[in-house]
C-alpha cells in the first residue's frame, strides 16, 4: 500500500488515468464555444461587412430555421437515433399553411390557425414515425427518410403542382419585423430553444432521454416506459419541423415543397458540431444552439467571401464528417473497467 492508500501502483495509475480523461473530456467539451469565437474573430478580420449590425441581423435571421430544427433533432440524437423527415415534412407543413391563409389558390383565410394546424400536422407525422420506429422495430433513419419522401409527395399533391402565394399581411410583418433589433423569426426560434431547454433540464422526460441514450438497459431496469419516451421524442421533433416549416413559409411567402429542401443537413451538423455525438447520451440543446450558430456563421461568412455555393455544400459535408470523427474518437476512450 502506498502513500495515497492505493493497494498497488496499477490502481493508482488507473485513478490518475480516469482523472486525466475527465480533464480532457471537460476541455474538449468547451471546444465548440472556442470554435465559434475563433470563427467570429477570423471572419471579422477577413470578410468585409461581417461584423456589422446589418450582417449580424442577417445571421440571426438565417439562424432561425436550423435552430428550430436542431432543437427537435437534439432529443432524437440524444437517444442515439436520427430524424431525416425534415425535408419532406417541413415542405409539406409550409405548403399547407400557405394554402390555409389568405392566398392565391384557395378561398381559405384562417389566419394564425393555419400555423397551428401546420405545427399539429408536424407533431402528428412525427408521432407516427415514432410509432413505426418503436413498434415496427425499424431503425429511425430509414423510417424518417421514407417519411420525408411520403410527405414531399403529399406536399406537391396539396397544391397540385402549382404553389400558392401568401397574401396574408401578418406573415409579411413577421417576415420583415424586428423586436429589439432581432427578427421576429429568430425570436420564435429562441422561444423554441427556451422550451427545449426547460424540457431537457426541468422535466422527467429530459432526464429519461439522456438515460436512454447513455444506457438503455439501466433505464429499462428502473421501470421507465422507454417506448413512450421514444415516441414522445419523435413527436417533439415533428413539432419542431412543423414550426420550421411555418417559418419557411413565412420567409419565402410561397407554399412550396422546397421550403424543406436542404434544412436537415445543417440541423444535424449543428447538433453534432455542438457536441452531441450521434451515439447519444450526452450534449444537449445548449450545445446545439452553439452548433447552429457555428453552422450559420460559416455559411454567412462563405457567402460574404464570395465562395461558390457548391463549395459551400462540400465544406458543410467536410465539417460534419470531421465533427463526427472527433466525437467517435472521444467516445472510444470509454473506460471499460
Amino acid at each position: 500500500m502506498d502513500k495515497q492508500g492505493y493497494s498497488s501502483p496499477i490502481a493508482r495509475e488507473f485513478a490518475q488515468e480516469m482523472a486525466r480523461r475527465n480533464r480532457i473530456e471537460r476541455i474538449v467539451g468547451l471546444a465548440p464555444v472556442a470554435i465559434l469565437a475563433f470563427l467570429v474573430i477570423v471572419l471579422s478580420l477577413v470578410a468585409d461587412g461581417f461584423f456589422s449590425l446589418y450582417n449580424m441581423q442577417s445571421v440571426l435571421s438565417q439562424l432561425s430555421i436550423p435552430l428550430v430544427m436542431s432543437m427537435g433533432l437534439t432529443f432524437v440524437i440524444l437517444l442515439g437515433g436520427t430524424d431525416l423527415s425534415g425535408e419532406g415534412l417541413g415542405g409539406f407543413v409550409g405548403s399547407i399553411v400557405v394554402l390555409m391563409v389568405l392566398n392565391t389558390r384557395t378561398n381559405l383565410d384562417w389566419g394564425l390557425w393555419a400555423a397551428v394546424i401546420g405545427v399539429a400536422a408536424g407533431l402528428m407525422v412525427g408521432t407516427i414515425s415514432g410509432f413505426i420506429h418503436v413498434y415496427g422495430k425499424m431503425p429511425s433513419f430509414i423510417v424518417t427518410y421514407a417519411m420525408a419522401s411520403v410527405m414531399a409527395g403529399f406536399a406537391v399533391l396539396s397544391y397540385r403542382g402549382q404553389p400558392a402565394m401568401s397574401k396574408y399581411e401578418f406573415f409579411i410583418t413577421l417576415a420583415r419585423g424586428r423586436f429589439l433589433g432581432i427578427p421576429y423569426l429568430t425570436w420564435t426560434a429562441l422561444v423554441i430553444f427556451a422550451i427545449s431547454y426547460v424540457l431537457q433540464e426541468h422535466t422527467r422526460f429530459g432526464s429519461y432521454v439522456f438515460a436512454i441514450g447513455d444506457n438503455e438497459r439501466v433505464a429499462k431496469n428502473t421501470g421507465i416506459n422507454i417506448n413512450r419516451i421514444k415516441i414522445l421524442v419523435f413527436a417533439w421533433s415533428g413539432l419542431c419541423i412543423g414550426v420550421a416549416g411555418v417559418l419557411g413559409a413565412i420567409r419565402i411567402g410561397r407554399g412550396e415543397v422546397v421550403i424543406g429542401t436542404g434544412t436537415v443537413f445543417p440541423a444535424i451538423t449543428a447538433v453534432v458540431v455542438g457536441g452531441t455525438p450521434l451515439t447519444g447520451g450526452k450534449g444537449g440543446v445548449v450545445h446545439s444552439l452553439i452548433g447552429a450558430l457555428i453552422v450559420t456563421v460559416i455559411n454567412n461568412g462563405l457567402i460574404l467571401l464570395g465562395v461558390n455555393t457548391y463549395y459551400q455544400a462540400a465544406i458543410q459535408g467536410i465539417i460534419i464528417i470531421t465533427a463526427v470523427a472527433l466525437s467517435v474518437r472521444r467516445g472510444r476512450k470509454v473506460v471499460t473497467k
Partner: protein
Amino acid sequence: METHSLLFSASKMAKRYPGTTALNAVELEVRPGEIVGLVGENGAGKSTLLKLIMGIEQPTEGAMAMRGEAYAPRTPIEANGMGVGMVFQEQSLIQNLTVGQNVFFGLEASYVRCGFLDKRRMYEDTRKILGEIGIDYIRPDKKVSNLDFATRQMVEIAKVFSVVTRRNAGGNLILLDEPTSVLNRSEVDNLFDNMRRMAAGGNSVIFVSHRLDEVLDVSDRIYVFKDGRNAALLDRKDANEAILYEKMVGKTVSGEYYKEDRQAVPGDEVLLEARNLGRRGFFGGVNLKLRRGEVVGVCGSIGSGKEDLCAVVCGDESYTAGELVVKGRVERFASPRQALKAGVLSIPKERREEGIIAEAPIYENIAMSNFRAFRRFGCVSARLERENARRRVDELSIRTPGINQSVGFLSGGNAQKVVFARILSSDADVLVLNHPTRGVDVGAKEEIYSLIRDITASGKGMILLGDTLDECIGLASRIIVMKDGLVTREFDAPAGAKPEQLEIVKYMV
C-alpha cells in the same frame, strides 16, 4: 429487535443452465442489521446467487423469503419494491445527469409539479440521503461525469439506499458486488463506515469481495461458496484468511481428468516473450516466456489485470510499457488481425459474440481464420473449405448433422470445438485461450482437454486463462499469478508435481 428472526433467507437454491450447474442446494440466511460476507473462487456461484436475489434471473429450484414472507422477484424493480437493492460491479449511473437526478432516477414522481421537476426540493432530499450515509460533501447538482470513480461508487450506493428505503425505514437488504476493486484504502474505510451505519439502522448488507482481508474486516458472518455449493459458514471471530483459503479451494482433481500424462515437455524455442510489459492503469511489469509445447496458465481474480494482459497479447489493446516479442521480433499489434499474421490467435471468452459466426455454416466458421489457405484461382473455394471442414469434424468428433449446419444450433461444447477447428486450420502457433471451457458440459470439457494436449504436442504454445483455478493448474506447465495488475508469483507445474490450489490462491487475494 428479535435476535432469532431473519431478514432474508434462501434455501435449496439451484440454478442450472443447459450443460452446467451454476448453483446447487445453496442456503443463505441474513439477520436484521447484519453484514454478511460472501467469498469464493471465480465461478463459485456468488454472482449467480446475487442475480437470483435481485430477480435478474429465476432460480431453477429453491425458495427465498424476505421478512418471513415468500420472496420471488421477477425483475430488479420488483426486488427494489420489496426493499432489496444491489450495487453492481459495473456502475449503473447515468453519466450526464446530476447526482440528485441519479439518486432519484425513476422515482421523480413526487417532485413533479404541473409537469415540471422541482429540482431544488429533489436536491434537498438528495443532500439528506447523502448525509445519512455520510457523504454530504458531494454536491447534488454536480454531473456524475465530473466525479471521480470512488465518488461515483458512493453515489451508486446512495441511489440504491434511497430506492430500497422508500417503503421501509429499516429492514432492507443491500447487495454489494465487488465494490472495492478500484477504491483506495481511505475510500474503502469510508465505504465500510457507511455499511456499518446502514446496518446500525436495521438494514442488512451482503458483501461480495475477493479481498479476504476486507471481508474479515467488515462482515459479521462469512459464507464460503465453492463450485456452486455452500462450503462453509463462519463467524468473524472464528475466521482468518488461512481458514477461508482452505474452505474456498478444494483438493486438486486427479491428473487423469486433465490428461496430465500427456502434458508436453516444453521445447527450447521461445514463441512469445513479454518483457516488462504493461498497459497503463491495467497491469505492469509482466515478464513471461512461452515456449513451444508449453501451456502458461495466468491466474488472478477479477481486476487482477489478467484479462487485459490477454487482450494486449492477442492485439485487442495496445501496451504502454515494455515490449512484446513474438518469435524474436518486437511486435506492437494494432489489431487482432495483425496478431494473427504474426501467429497469435485467441479463443475468446464470449463465444457467442466473439468466437463464432452463429448464422454461418460450420465449414465457413472453420475456414475463417485462414481463408488464404482455401484459395483457388484467387477466390475462396467452398470445395477446399468443405474438405477441410469434413476432416476437422471427424478429427475433433464434432457432433453435427453436417458441415452446412449453422454453428448457432450446436451445443456449447460442439460450438467450442468448431472454434478449435478454426484455430487448427490457421497457421497460428501461439494460442490465447480465454476460458476455453466456459459453458461447456463435462463430457465435452474432457474432449477439449484432450484436444489441448494434442495441440501442444504438435508444438504450439498456449496462454491459458482457465475457467477455474483447478483447470489452470491441471492444464498448465507453468503458472503466473497476478494481483492488482502485478505478477505476484510464478510456479512450475510439471506433470506429477502440480502446485496446490491453496498455494496459488494466497498470491491471488
